[in-house]
């Protein structure tokens, strides 16, 4: 498997607190890699460092064979390394379609264009519509994003990441706040997308993780405790103790 994203003992600390502790990851092309771990283990912090939002104290990030550690968020985004946010982060005054088109445009070309309407850009618009279709928001195209319910916001958040046409998707709890039905839809969607994109998924919804992940890394106190297949994880005693708990071995509800 060709490695797409690799980190080299990535370390981030806040004062005395080591949030990511020499994390080395290697994610192959087309893989769906999940990261699980207790709250506050450093998952979001890790994603922030991968996306470029946070600078690590030491260590490096390699994407597509190049060292991207020094690149900014938007430069990484342009190369196809995109993220969604754990805390919903959409443009509330824009319509759903505008939100998605914006995302589609941003990653593909510069926006120093001052005359023709953004929505007239055929290419970006097509990507946006596809992404909205995939996330099931087609019926809400012209609604202002601020008027969406919480769950729909999450859907839009995901649609924006997809519309950007990523090579690699960093998904931070995409299912949080979604009802079972919507989660199931997103799981199905990710199933379909799986081989097209390489995906790093952070999620506490174990149904989703076990259903989707090729490999899972368990992050505890900033360190990778264990990396393995879903089955290995499910039965790993230590993982069960620190994270899964006793009953949590598979489908709930």
């Amino acid at each position: 498997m060709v490695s797409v994203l690799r980190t080299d003992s990535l370390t981030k600390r806040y004062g005395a607190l080591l949030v990511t502790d020499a994390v080395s990851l290697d994610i192959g092309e087309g893989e769906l890699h999940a990261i699980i771990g207790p709250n506050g283990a450093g998952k979001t912090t890790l994603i922030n460092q991968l996306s470029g939002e946070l600078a690590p104290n030491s260590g490096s990030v390699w994407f597509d064979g190049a060292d991207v550690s020094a690149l900014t968020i938007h430069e990484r985004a342009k190369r196809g390394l995109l993220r969604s946010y754990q805390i919903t982060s959409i443009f509330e005054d824009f319509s759903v379609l505008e939100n998605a088109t914006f995302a589609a445009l941003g990653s593909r070309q510069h926006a120093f264009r001052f005359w023709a309407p953004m929505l007239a850009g055929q290419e970006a618009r097509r990507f946006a519509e596809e992404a909205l279709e995939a996330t099931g928001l087609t019926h809400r195209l012209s609604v202002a994003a601020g008027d969406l319910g919480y769950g729909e916001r999450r859907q839009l958040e995901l649609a924006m990441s997809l519309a950007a046409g990523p090579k690699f998707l960093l998904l931070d709890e995409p299912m949080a706040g979604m009802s079972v039905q919507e989660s199931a839809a997103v799981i199905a969607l990710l199933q379909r997308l799986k081989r097209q994109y390489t995906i790093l998924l952070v999620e506490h919804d174990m149904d989703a993780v076990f259903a989707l992940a090729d490999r899972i890394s368990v992050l505890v106190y900033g360190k990778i405790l264990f990396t393995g297949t879903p089955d290995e994880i499910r039965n790993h005693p230590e993982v069960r103790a620190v994270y899964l708990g006793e009953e949590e071995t598979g489908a709930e509800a």
Partner: protein
Amino acid sequence: MSAFLSVKSLQASYGHAQALFDISFEVGAGEVVTLLGRNGMGRSTTVKCLFGMLPVSSGSVSVGGERVDHLPSHRIARKGLALVPEGRQVFPNLTVEENLVATARDDKRSRGKAWDLDRVYVFFPRLKERRGNLGSQLSGGEQQMLAIGRALMTNPRLLVLDEATEGLAPVIRNEIWRALAELKQDGLSQIVIDKNVKALMGLADRHFVIEKGCVVWQGTSNDLRGQPEIVHQYLGV
């Protein structure tokens, strides 16, 4: 059983868009009920109306037999209601400890052991570790714990949890379910909104399914178990 909270034919709108059409349910003293439904059906909107955060356009909300639907939020809360809101909403510019104590209250009417800083820290040791951090510096799950702890610190008689287990690790989530069960033993009434129907069936006495702003089904956990088609139809499972 005399209802502690009773909601009758509630209607509410966001601007011109009506979100609630007909919501009625009751929560008895010490009872745990759930509001079930898919995304965008109006569960959180109902919660906002309970707390006076959204004006009620018609219908009524009563606490202990007293109409509260036109009272300001803080007066309603003072009747013994506490909220763990959707999306956490911890105070980003306060430290963990300040978040907990700022709105803390000792309500003589609440039953069971009183909640104080120590008890919350025992419950969520993680918060104790992070006590000096600002709310904005917490991880998603830590914020969720903080939101729960903050609500408990008001020593409520009715705890309203809107997606309170969202973003929590499974172990913690199980802890929460256990704790809610314990609180129920103490006699604390609860309204729980969550997607984990299985856990809810274990915890709650009664369920209300909300669809497009109306209560379309209600019944006990046993009723729900007996009618899987309901779960399928309204919750998509």
